[in-house]
């Protein structure tokens, strides 16, 4: 018996939450929402993990970058000395 080398990932297909609920507006002034799409280190979570559709991922990316610029979100959590 051949051992399954490659572990099957869950086939659960995530649905873009912004397509599912059109009431949620992506806004750079809303770090609470955007926080969901960054890692602990402050990096933007890729689409394949977050499950966003291309369009909304683009908007999220834009919003996160704007929020970073105006110091609402961190560029990195490692503080420079």
């Amino acid at each position: 018996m051949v051992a399954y080398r490659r572990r099957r990932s869950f086939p659960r297909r995530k649905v873009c939450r912004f397509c599912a609920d059109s009431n949620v507006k992506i806004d750079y002034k809303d770090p609470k929402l955007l926080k969901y799409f960054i890692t602990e280190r402050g990096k933007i979570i890729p689409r394949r993990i977050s499950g966003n559709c291309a369009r909304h991922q683009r908007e999220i990316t834009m919003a996160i970058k704007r929020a970073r610029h105006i110091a609402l979100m961190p560029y990195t959590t490692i503080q420079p000395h």
Partner: protein
Amino acid sequence: MRRYETLFIVTPDSSEEELKAVADKFQGVVTGMNGKVASYDEQGKKSLAYNVKKQSKGYYVLMDYLGQAEVVAELERNMRLDDRILKYLTVKLADQVDPATVEAAKPKPKKEAEKTEVAEEEAQSPEDQESEEEETEED
């Protein structure tokens, strides 16, 4: 006219009067250049995600206004010169807006979208045509 919003951070050790002075100054800049301030919203003191000019906190202020591109240039120039402003970010919200449809200091973003389309059909001024850049960001 175009609609912009500028989010800026005022230094945390400023007093009530200084915040008022900042408000008067920048609203004056906009109105002085034939712009129109739609709203001026002080969002209060928040902690910054990272230190800016050695400050870890700041007063966030969101100003929503109408005007030509020169208004933004002048406003940002003033913000750069002003020591009380730690950082600012300007984003364009709409390209062609009829100023009559926007009440001063009372934003109506929902209605805005419909009115913008009407304004486009009526007045197509040539200088409003080209504007690719969606925002101006500067330190």
